[in-house]
């Protein structure tokens, strides 16, 4: 049995706290497992808050295209990549809602940073630390936090350990601080690597892809012919050749060749875990058409 900190269910916790503080009902649904019930809950909502993870942005846009839910006044994204490119659609769906990117990690409660959706055009920008939170990054860009709230606890050698207010805690993300004081995520520690001497961040590549590709995109690691680490970009649904060319043109304009994907593959849909995140193992195990191959 594995015990996980409650913050692993942050979207739920956030809504539960909001409902408690504002004396509202907490309306549990089965999410996208039952879209009709979710739609009805959104139609019935009055001055409601909805907290999601990033990957649910495109799902919302696809499931409820053209609909309007005026009863939602707060829309928080608190997990995974913030769906910045879906913002126009989310604005149409929830015209009264303030939309925010809430960043945190499993050990961080409540969250580490927050920014309004309009405050930055990059989904990787997570804004500034919340009051009581300090962030720092070392030479390797590993992002750490310290919180006056202390924290829950972390597994360490199979045991729980309380995190004190003076303890710096690694988030598992790499990040850089921008000149304006906000923080920009570079990816998880496993998502940033060197390829032929060039630093590669799959999070940054997904940021670039998102500028022109608004459907689903994900990456999985692979090696090139010489054994150098690389990654495969997966798009769902698979674009046509014109779409691939358009995307490659954008990639060429912004990234050195070493940062390009080894291949671009298509899928009908991306495999997902129950929590809505992309199932990385299934993604690499599945086969799909190769839309472009760098041949390196």
């Amino acid at each position, binding site marked *: 049995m594995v015990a996980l900190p409650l913050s692993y269910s942050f979207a739920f916790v956030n809504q539960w706290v909001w409902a408690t503080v504002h004396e509202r009902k907490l309306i549990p649904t089965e999410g996208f497992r039952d879209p009709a019930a979710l739609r009805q809950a959104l139609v019935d909502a009055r001055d409601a808050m909805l907290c999601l993870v990033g990957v649910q942005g495109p799902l919302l846009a696809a499931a409820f295209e053209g609909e309007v839910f005026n009863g939602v006044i707060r829309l928080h994204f608190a997990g995974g990549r913030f769906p910045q490119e879906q913002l126009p659609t989310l604005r149409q769906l929830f015209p009264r809602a303030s939309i925010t990117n809430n960043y945190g990690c499993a050990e961080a409660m409540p969250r580490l940073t927050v920014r309004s959706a309009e405050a930055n055009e990059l989904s990787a920008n997570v804004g500034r630390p919340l009051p009581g939170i300090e962030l720092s990054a070392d030479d390797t860009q590993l992002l750490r936090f310290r919180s006056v709230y202390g924290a829950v606890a972390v597994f360490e050698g199979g045991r729980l350990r309380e995190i004190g207010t003076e303890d710096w805690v690694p988030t598992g993300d790499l990040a850089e601080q921008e000149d304006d004081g906000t923080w920009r995520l570079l990816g998880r520690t496993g998502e940033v690597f060197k390829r*032929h001497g060039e630093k590669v961040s799959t999070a940054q590549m997904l940021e670039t892809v998102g500028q022109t590709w608004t459907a689903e995109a994900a990456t999985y690691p692979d090696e090139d*012919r010489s054994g150098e680490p690389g990654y495969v970009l997966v798009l769902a649904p698979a674009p046509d050749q014109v779409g691939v060319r358009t995307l490659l043109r954008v*990639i*060429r304009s912004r990234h*050195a*060749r*070493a940062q390009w994907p080894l291949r671009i593959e298509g899928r009908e849909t991306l495999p997902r875990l129950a929590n809505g995140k992309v199932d990385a193992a299934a993604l690499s195990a599945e086969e799909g058409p190769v839309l472009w191959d*760098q*041949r*390196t």
Partner: protein
Amino acid sequence: MAAREKLNDLLMDVFLLDDGELGDELRRADLDTWDSLGTVSLAVGVEEVFGYHMTPEEATGLESVGGLVALLRTKGIEIE
């Protein structure tokens, strides 16, 4: 598909070129995507498309598309 068409498709695919950028006069020095990895990619592509395995010296010695066309001609692959 004609050999020239195959070559153009390959160059567009390897160097992410647009139609307007294609031509024998296109030089390695003028193309940001024709770097060392681009050279590897081109060599693999030439073998895939034309069945000719370039030596490392041939691949790294190329200075232009025209040079590649000339090299392929010496190997019996006519690019009209």
